[in-house]
């Protein structure tokens, strides 16, 4: 025959059972979270990448990172942060994404934007294609209870807008009016993912430092395009460029960059 159970006894037993149920539920939840997390695949960069340079000389590149969340639980507070450095360790750019959330069983894209002040940090970026060490951090909360952060390193291929810039003076020739003509061939490749616009100011000086002639070129080169133009300089006989130098300055997109002075033969 079943014995009657006192009220306090039943209460204490019920409390213990509730605790046990909570424990079992939490353990099952963790098991489900682990299984669900095992379904997640690494994010891949995809879609269009856009690039532009602000008037203040900051290159802004935006790409989309594809993310698939086939599990049962949501990603919340998902945020990507990144930084770019020169090979010598100098910080040249930072970026990130807005804070996003992805429900379980969905795929989506996270827009990641990073900014590189071309003029302020390093003008090396204007003229040199580089493999820039990039550090990426991804922070998210999974299943409301677990904060996950992933840090990874990659190399970012930076294409310089004035890559392989060259100004090659030609042989001087005497003109009929007594002036001397020196053609200077200006070539470079725009390896960047954005178009380059601006102008190029060229100044030829004599060996004594006297400015003999100056000229300017409009520059408009699409992304991954090349530039090849010849500028003719005319010198008065009194100002011989022989042994002098040519100075070039690029101005545009918020950037002013003086190339290293080249000696003339």
């Amino acid at each position, binding site marked *: 025959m079943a014995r009657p159970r006192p009220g306090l006894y039943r209460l204490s037993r019920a409390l213990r059972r509730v605790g046990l149920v909570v424990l079992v539920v939490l353990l099952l939840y963790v098991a489900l979270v682990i299984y669900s997390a095992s379904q997640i695949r690494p994010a891949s960069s995809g879609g269009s990448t856009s690039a532009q340079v602000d008037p203040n000389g900051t290159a802004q590149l935006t790409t989309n990172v594809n993310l698939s969340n086939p599990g049962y639980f949501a990603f919340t507070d998902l945020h990507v942060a990144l930084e770019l450095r020169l090979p010598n360790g100098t910080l040249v750019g930072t970026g990130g994404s807005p804070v996003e959330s992805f429900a379980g069983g969905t795929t989506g894209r996270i827009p990641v934007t990073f900014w590189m002040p071309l003029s302020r940090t390093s003008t090396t970026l204007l003229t040199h294609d580089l493999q820039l060490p990039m550090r990426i951090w991804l922070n998210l909360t999974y299943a409301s209870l677990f904060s996950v952060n*992933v840090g*990874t390193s990659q190399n970012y291929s930076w294409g310089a807008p004035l890559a392989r810039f060259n100004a090659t003076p030609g042989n001087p020739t005497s003109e009929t009016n007594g002036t001397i003509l020196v053609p200077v061939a200006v070539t470079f490749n725009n390896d960047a993912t954005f178009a380059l616009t601006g102008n190029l100011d060229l100044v030829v000086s004599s060996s004594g430092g006297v400015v003999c002639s100056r000229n300017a070129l409009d520059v408009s080169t699409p992304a991954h395009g090349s530039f090849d133009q010849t500028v003719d300089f005319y010198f008065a006989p009194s100002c011989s460029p022989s042994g002098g130098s040519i100075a070039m300055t690029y101005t545009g997109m918020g950037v002013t960059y003086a190339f290293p002075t080249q000696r003339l033969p």
Partner: protein
Amino acid sequence: MTADAPDPTPSTSSGPPTIPPGAAGIGTPPPAPVPATRSTPEPTSPLVDEAPPAPVPVAPARSPPAPALSPSVQIPGNARRAVVAVVVCLVLLIVLVFLPVVLLNRLAGLSGQGVSFSTSLTTSTVIVYGVVVSVLYGLRSALRPTRAYGPLTVLVSLVGIVYLLYLARLATFTIGGSDTTIGLDAAPFVTLLALVPLFGVLSGIVVTVEDFARPGERLRVDYPAPA
């Protein structure tokens, strides 16, 4: 807290002693009927806080009738409870100490394979807290028929809560390869786990109140004598 005392109602069987309700040791037992014959009962009962009145031989015809509707109580012997306590303790040591320490050591050993693992949680923390909790649970199991059961339940649950809250501060794990690291912060989950011993605290309080307010009541249900 507990005092061994002679079993007030020796059973005629060879098994554990059978105690009528009210004589279970939690509270003042009423006079119990004493059988005319006496076998070799468990010499002691761990239940009592106050010594029950010594059994007085009374002629069977004059002894008060046993409460026919009230069930009697059969407390396991000391040896059996000690064995159960040791088993409980060992199981908990395996779950709370052995397995976590093995896991931590395995993860720490990954560094030899080019994978680094770091956590604020140390094996000594796991061992110390795990041993304390396991021993307390074992002790609680052994003292279940006594008044100490409720307070011990509260104590062991409080220790569990403190342990889990302390663990929550350390529950960050980082595993890294050559160029990728993954960090996990399980603090919210571990904090939530502290709900489990919180219910233990509440249950222990209720048991304590019950044992002091209605002595022996719990034992009738926990240790019913076979019909």
